[in-house]
C-alpha cells in the first residue's frame, strides 16, 4: 500500500478595482502545491475562472507588496495580490 501525502498551501489572493467589481469579491482563495511559485497562483486563478484564464495567466502578481517573477517560490503567509488594471492619477 502506497501512502501519498500531497501538501498544499492556501492563499487568499487580493484583487481590486474593476476586477473585484466584476468578480464581486475582494480576494480569491487558491491552493498551491508546497514549494509552489507565483506561476502556480496564476494557473490556479486561471483554472478557477476559465472565462478569464488568459487574463489570469498573464496577470502581474505582487508578493509581499512587490512585483515578483513567476519563478519566485512562495511561503505560507505570503500576501499575494493581482496588480492589473491600475490607473492612479
Amino acid at each position: 500500500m502506497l501512502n501519498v501525502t500531497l501538501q498544499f498551501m492556501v492563499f487568499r489572493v487580493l484583487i481590486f478595482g474593476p476586477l473585484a467589481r466584476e468578480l464581486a469579491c475582494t480576494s480569491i482563495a487558491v491552493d498551491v502545491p508546497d514549494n509552489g511559485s507565483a506561476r502556480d497562483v496564476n494557473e490556479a486563478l486561471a483554472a478557477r475562472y476559465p472565462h478569464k484564464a488568459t487574463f489570469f495567466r498573464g496577470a502581474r502578481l505582487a508578493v509581499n507588496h512587490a512585483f515578483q517573477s513567476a519563478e519566485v517560490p512562495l511561503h505560507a503567509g505570503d500576501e499575494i495580490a493581482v496588480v492589473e488594471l491600475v490607473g492612479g492619477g
Partner: protein
Amino acid sequence: MSVTIRIIDGPLGEPASVLLPAAQFGAAIVFDGVVRSDEGGRTIRALNYEVYEPMASNMLAELGREMLTKHGLVSIMVEHSRGEVSVGQRSFRLTVHALHRAESLAAVGEFIDLMKRDVPIWKTALHASPPGLA
C-alpha cells in the same frame, strides 16, 4: 535631494509652498490631476480611489527615487488621494524641483506614465444616478 510621498484621504488641498534652500533649482513644476465630469463617456459625480498599501507608497517612492537619479532632480513630492474625490477636485499632485526645465518636464511625464502602469491604485467612477437608470 528628497522624495516625499503622501497618501491623503479625500481630495487634495491647495498646493503648499515647498521650502527649499534658495538657488538650488531653476525649475519648479506642480502638476495637478483633477477629476473630470466625463469618464468613459458617462457623466460622473466622483471617482473613488483604492490604494493598496504599503505597496502603493513603496512603489511611488521607488519611482520617485528613479526619477531623481535619472533626471538629476533636486526634489520630488507625490500626493495621491484615497477614497472619494468629487468632480473638479484634485486627486493627484506631483511637485518637482530641478536645475533646468527640460529634466523637470521629462520627469513629470515619465513619472505619471510609470505610475499609471505599475502603482497599485485603482479608480472607480461614481455616477450621479445608479447604473442602469442613466
